[in-house]
């Protein structure tokens, strides 16, 4: 082992030293260099082995889904499936598109769909995010381009998954190489082909010239693309200003003003459906007495100036959110929510009524930029509540919550896996799972009813009840939707989307 390590070490050393030239892309050769880092390195590019969040931009470039979700209107449109119809409560039939080819030349047909769906739905194959696939019972080939998909139960959110995390793999290739082979040399039908992958460093793509069958995703706009993993935002900005990269998506709202002011660069902000909230340990999991009292939570809701926070720190087209979900999501009825206006006088009164006229001390947790939390703490201090901030890495914080539950108050957020359905956020947090700090039976039951009924109006009615109770009890104080900030070279043609999914292949030069 030592010998091997030494040999590898030596070769690594020489390779690093010999490889040279740092020519960066320029519009002339129609190539593009993108810096990416906010979600961290993709641990494994196989879409079913990673957590989806890290691999999402990659998977959209290389693979296609059966269904396309229009990013602006959230309508479902044909992608690899030409059309579909419901055969029963639990069976959908898909007509597939013909003439589509995978990057390795393999033709796309019903076998690929059947193979992929059956492979991922088999728990033995260990798809990482089981909730994405565990609703599939079976896929059956009906004709060369016709597939029936049977669900285990009526599953209203099925299309969100079929248009999102479920991408179609080439059956022959995947059967041969498996997940690790897919990681080394990914093959899909998508608009870009993989040239090379260096985990956690860079991914090189070229245009899929055969992507001309009228996909609603559109053809790639550049011939060559390099996506570099740069974790540090300041390093990204330095590279952007120095011409090493063409676009970054990880900057702050202040950077937008600053970079936008530099000639040759443009910066913009675009709202996303990622919803920020302050969670309270209303159920008393961590034994912090004040937050278990409704009046205290209401007082805090009144004490925090969310408008000022949004206007000064988040900016862009972000807005204050009053629902424990994002308003475009199915079921997320804004009118059902109890709203709390900024009123510190009222907050003080409520605190006094709750028995804390002089406020109290509380631990406050976040994994996001400290200035957001600091703004909240400043407001709370003015009504006498002294919050002590602990900023932790995401996983460490989530672990603390699940294992110990000792987080009386936390500023966090949720991206709903980019799914436009309330079940992806509210049901995750309020169905008495490990992340639930309300532990409210009513809410859990309503959400369960909303999640499993196939009648849209029944779903909506149940979800509305849940929203009303969650906001009325201030289990969460919904804060604002997050904004994604982009800085890029002026000549770049760039389109942002609300669902937080970057679609790099659509970026091109003017």
């Amino acid at each position: 082992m030592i010998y091997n390590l030494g040999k590898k070490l030596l070769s690594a050393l020489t390779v690093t030293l010999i490889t040279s030239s740092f020519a960066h892309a320029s519009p002339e050769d129609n190539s593009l260099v993108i810096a990416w880092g906010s979600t961290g390195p993709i641990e494994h590019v196989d879409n079913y082995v990673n957590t989806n969040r890290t691999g999402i931009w990659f998977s959209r470039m290389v693979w296609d889904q059966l269904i396309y979700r229009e990013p602006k209107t959230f309508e479902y449109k044909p992608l690899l499936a030409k059309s579909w119809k419901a055969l029963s409560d639990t069976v959908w039939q898909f007509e597939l598109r013909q003439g589509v080819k995978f990057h390795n030349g393999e033709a796309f047909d019903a076998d690929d769909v059947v193979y992929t769906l059956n492979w991922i739905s088999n728990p033995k194959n260990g798809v990482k995010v089981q909730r994405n696939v565990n609703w599939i019972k079976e896929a059956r080939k009906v004709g060369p381009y016709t597939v029936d998909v049977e669900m285990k139960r009526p599953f209203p959110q099925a299309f969100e998954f079929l248009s999102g995390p479920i991408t179609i793999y080439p059956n022959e290739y995947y059967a041969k190489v498996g997940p690790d082979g897919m990681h080394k040399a990914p093959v899909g039908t998508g608009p870009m082909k993989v040239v090379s992958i260096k985990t956690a460093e860079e991914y090189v793509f070229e245009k899929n010239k055969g992507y001309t069958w009228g996909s609603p995703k559109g053809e790639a706009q550049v011939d060559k693309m390099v996506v570099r993993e740069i974790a540090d935002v300041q390093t990204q900005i330095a590279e952007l200003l120095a011409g090493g990269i063409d676009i970054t998506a990880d900057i702050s709202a202040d950077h937008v003003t600053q970079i936008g002011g530099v000639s040759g660069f443009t910066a913009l902000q675009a709202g996303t459906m990622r919803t920020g909230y302050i969670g309270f340990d209303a159920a008393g999991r961590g034994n912090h007495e004040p937050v278990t009292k409704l009046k205290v939570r209401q007082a805090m809701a009144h004490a925090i100036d969310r408008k000022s926070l949004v206007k000064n720190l988040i900016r862009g087209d972000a807005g204050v959110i009053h629902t424990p979900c994002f308003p475009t999501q199915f079921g997320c009825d804004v009118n059902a929510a109890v709203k709390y206006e900024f009123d510190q006088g009222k907050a003080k009164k409520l605190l006094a009524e709750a028995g804390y006229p002089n406020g109290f001390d509380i631990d406050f947790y976040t994994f996001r930029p400290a200035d957001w939390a600091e703004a909240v703490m400043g407001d709370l201090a003015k009504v006498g509540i002294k919050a002590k901030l602990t900023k932790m890495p995401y996983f460490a914080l989530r672990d603390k919550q699940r294992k110990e539950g000792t987080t009386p108050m936390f500023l966090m957020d949720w991206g709903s896996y980019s799914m436009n359905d309330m079940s992806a956020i509210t049901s995750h947090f309020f169905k008495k799972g490990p992340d639930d700090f309300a532990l409210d039976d009513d809410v859990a039951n309503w959400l369960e009813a909303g999640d499993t009924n196939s009648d849209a109006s029944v779903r909506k009615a149940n979800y509305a009840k849940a929203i009303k109770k969650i906001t009325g009890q201030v289990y969460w104080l919904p804060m604002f939707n997050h904004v994604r900030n982009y800085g890029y070279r002026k000549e770049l043609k760039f389109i942002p989307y609300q669902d937080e999914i970057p679609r790099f292949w659509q970026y091109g030069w003017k």
Partner: protein
Amino acid sequence: MTTIPSLIRSQQTAEEILEPTPMMKLRRRVFKNHSFLIGALTLIFIITIAVLAPFIAPHDPYDQDLSRRLINPFWHDKKTADLYVFGTDKVGRDYLSRVIYGAQISLLIGFLTVLISGVIGTALGVIAGYFGGRVDMVVNFIINTRLAMPVFLVAMAAVVAFGASIHVVIMVLGLFLWDRFAVVMRSITMQARDLDYVSAARAIGCSTPYIIIREIFPNVLSSLTVVATVEMANAILLEAALSFLGFGVQAPTPSWGLMLNEGREYMFFSPWLLALPGTGLFLLVLAINLFGDGLRDVTLERER
């Protein structure tokens, strides 16, 4: 990270540690014999600022107001000069006041870290030196084990494990930076053990703790102070680096390292947010180093 390489340290004896290092001889040549004076004056100046912070600072360092965030300092914006000399930070706190209070935090971390590490190191060193033999061997092993641990990495891991806060940072650094104390105390105790008055004390039946506290300690106090300055500079730089990576002191504490971390966001467009706490850190560490060098001179001369 910004420590004297542990490898060198492990090989060192107390004489070598107390002997001026190449770095110190060098500093001395630069500042001639003024090093002690310059260092002491700067240090007194910074300590005064830290102690008098509530009276000097024009604003409450925690008082924030989003509507007045990121005001430029006086050399960019004459209008606000009287109110916010160094401008404000990203949640609208007065930057000058934060820089002033930052001295408190750095000094506090430096002092408390040295206090903890000093107690641990001294205890181990004295025990090893006084008893010798197997005890000495065990202590030596502990020292070597400590030296083998990569301080910065393990400190980061500890912060992840126990949560980041000023207490955790002080505890972790205190538990790490004691090796030099131990080495020095061990060797000095060994020498002192055989001195006449210690033998005399033992002969008249004084207890071991009594001998250590009453007879040995007064003799080594100056050496301890010298080691303390070195470790203090070390601790301050380590805290800054930890906070800079987000593994240190928590917001809104006005730690210089944390301010560097926050100001970094503006490094290309408002570089003073980086430059001001950076300068504070630089001056403090320089002052402590110079003071330590000077003190060592005085100490060595007196002992000779």
